[in-house]
């Protein structure tokens, strides 16, 4: 059974043609927290509907179910009739207000109640400019998510992805819900492999603008770009070390695709080779402690995922089933590895529990690519194809709750989920 919850409307506008993620729920028996989210008092006069943004965020996580609040008249100062919300089977209640300040900013206030225990869980207030009202709503969703699940929310984080329309390529930065997309780079040549720096201020990526693959580091807020790898041959697959000082990358300057470490703090320094082989070594990714690198190699005859210490030593093989395992990505909590495995000719997103090596496919699509974890390790974003069109998907790690961001006038690909905002 597949049910499509259309929790938002799609804009048909040139500038925001990629619109929002739409949630698709599959599977039954999910444990979801029932939450009542009342309209924020005054939000009809504000540029953003705070309550519906918060609700859409929480539903996309797969861990919440919204309870009808029509007819309620609440804000953060109310003393709600808890027993009536208990009767509606809400476990939690959120209310708040938005008001315009004399200086033009908006004062956003909220209060969260635990309906089961009948007590207030806390509140927040902040004054923001109109352009930051969406961010304020995402931060409220993060607050609610953390209070009710114990995990940090990721609704105020950002994602990067690439679109292709004709021979036009764009690198975009958008909110985690797919909204507010802004183009960071426009090019007539392909752009692949964008990777957020640990601070969330820079993107490393591969650009073909020089008619060969070279690697740039791009400061998102200013647009300032630095060409960090333009060695003879191909330069690709950039990955940041957790401290942001080193870039792991694939260079072919010595013949063959080989892993290298580049010291970013020391301009002009020589890359250092690791995991040397006479085969393909590529797609490096650091572990959260920065001590190991997972990567793809065909040294055993077919592409498989290996793990090597940054300090050196022999790589050890990580994947053993299947003849094509690529694009490893590690959860920030260190528990999971997501990767793409070819199964009967189909390329499927898999999630492996690293402690046990148990892995399973979590999609029913056939051309999955390039997964990355949300910073709280609870969700994945990846690219795929549906009805012959490229789309981006988010999914819970068990594959039960997915949301889709469709490309409307072209292709959409190469997602990367950014870190927590600092």
């Amino acid at each position, binding site marked *: 059974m597949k049910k499509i919850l259309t929790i938002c409307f799609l*804009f048909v*506008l040139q*500038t*925001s043609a990629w619109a929002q993620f739409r949630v698709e729920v599959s599977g039954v028996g999910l444990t979801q927290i029932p939450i009542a989210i009342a309209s924020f008092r005054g939000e009809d006069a504000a*540029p953003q509907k705070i309550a519906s943004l918060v609700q859409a965020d929480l539903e996309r996580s797969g861990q919440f179910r919204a309870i009808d609040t029509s007819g309620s008249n609440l804000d953060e100062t109310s003393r709600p009739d808890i027993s009536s919300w208990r009767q509606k089977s809400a476990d939690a209640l959120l209310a708040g207000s938005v008001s315009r300040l004399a200086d033009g900013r908006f004062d956003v206030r909220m209060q969260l109640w635990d309906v089961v225990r009948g007590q207030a869980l806390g509140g927040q207030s902040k004054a923001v400019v*109109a*352009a930051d009202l*969406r961010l304020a709503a995402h931060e409220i969703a993060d607050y609610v998510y953390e209070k009710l699940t114990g995990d940090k929310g990721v609704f105020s984080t950002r994602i990067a992805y690439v679109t292709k329309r004709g*021979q036009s390529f*764009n690198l975009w930065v958008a909110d985690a819900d797919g909204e507010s*997309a*802004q*183009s*960071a*780079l*426009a090019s*007539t*040549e392909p752009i*692949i492999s964008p990777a957020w720096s640990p601070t969330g201020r820079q993107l490393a990526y*591969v650009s*073909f*603008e*020089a*008619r*060969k*693959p*070279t690697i740039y580091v*791009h400061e998102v*807020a*200013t*647009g300032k*770009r630095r*060409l*960090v*790898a*333009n*060695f003879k*041959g*191909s330069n*690709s697959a950039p990955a940041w070390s957790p401290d942001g000082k080193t870039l792991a990358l*694939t260079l*072919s300057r010595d*013949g*063959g*695709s080989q892993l290298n470490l580049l010291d970013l703090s020391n*301009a*002009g320094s020589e890359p250092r080779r690791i995991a040397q082989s006479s085969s*393909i070594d*590529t*797609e490096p990714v650091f572990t959260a402690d920065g001590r190991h690198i997972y990567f*793809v190699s065909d040294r055993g005859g077919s*592409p498989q995922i290996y793990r090597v210490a940054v300090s050196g030593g022999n790589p050890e093989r990580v994947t053993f089933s299947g003849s*094509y395992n*690529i*694009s490893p990505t590690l959860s920030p909590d260190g528990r999971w590895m997501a990767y793409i495995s*070819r199964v009967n000719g189909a*390329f499927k997103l898999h999630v492996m529990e690293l402690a046990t090596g148990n892995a399973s496919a979590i999609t029913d699509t056939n051309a999955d*690519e*390039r997964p990355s974890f949300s910073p709280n390790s609870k969700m994945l974003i990846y690219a795929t194809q549906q009805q012959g069109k490229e789309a981006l998907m988010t999914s819970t790690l068990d594959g039960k709750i997915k949301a889709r961001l469709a490309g409307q006038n072209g292709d959409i690909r*190469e997602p990367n989920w950014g870190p927590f905002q600092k």
Partner: protein
Amino acid sequence: MKHTVVILGLVAMLSACGSSVKLDKVPVEDRSGSTSGSGNGANGANGADGSGVAKSNVASVDLSKSAQDGAPQGTARVVYFDYDSFVIKPEFQSLIEANAKYIRADKARKVVIEGHTDERGGREYNLALGQKRSEAVRKALVLAGVADGQLEAVSFGKEKPAVQGSTEAAMEKNRRAEISYR
């Protein structure tokens, strides 16, 4: 509801006017040697692009006939490969010899060999596979007497198909290495 759509739309439009970078306007700090020439994609490989074409359609593009500055006239420049293979088939040996002879004749000439794959599989892994193809051609040219310093082997992976489409015929045309006289 309608009002919200309009207002949100305006906000989206305004915020979309952010700091997009146009490639020709940005100062770039190059810390690792020279950037290669800014030849701007005047390659026949793009000729088959375009939407509104039937999926099964295969537009035939013959790169050996496309004009490229400095390319030898009447000499084919594209080596095609079998699926998952980097072996230069015997039928392309005369192409290698003809290009090698041409490159040998001008020691100042620089030539780039561009490897490509079909659309199956991941982008980065395909980039590495395309690199294997371009390096197979580079090695064959060196064996045919070309100085290695005149050659650079690079890869476009699956990013620049010669032919659009997912048919076997299209994919055959995309598994290739092009000898490029930029």
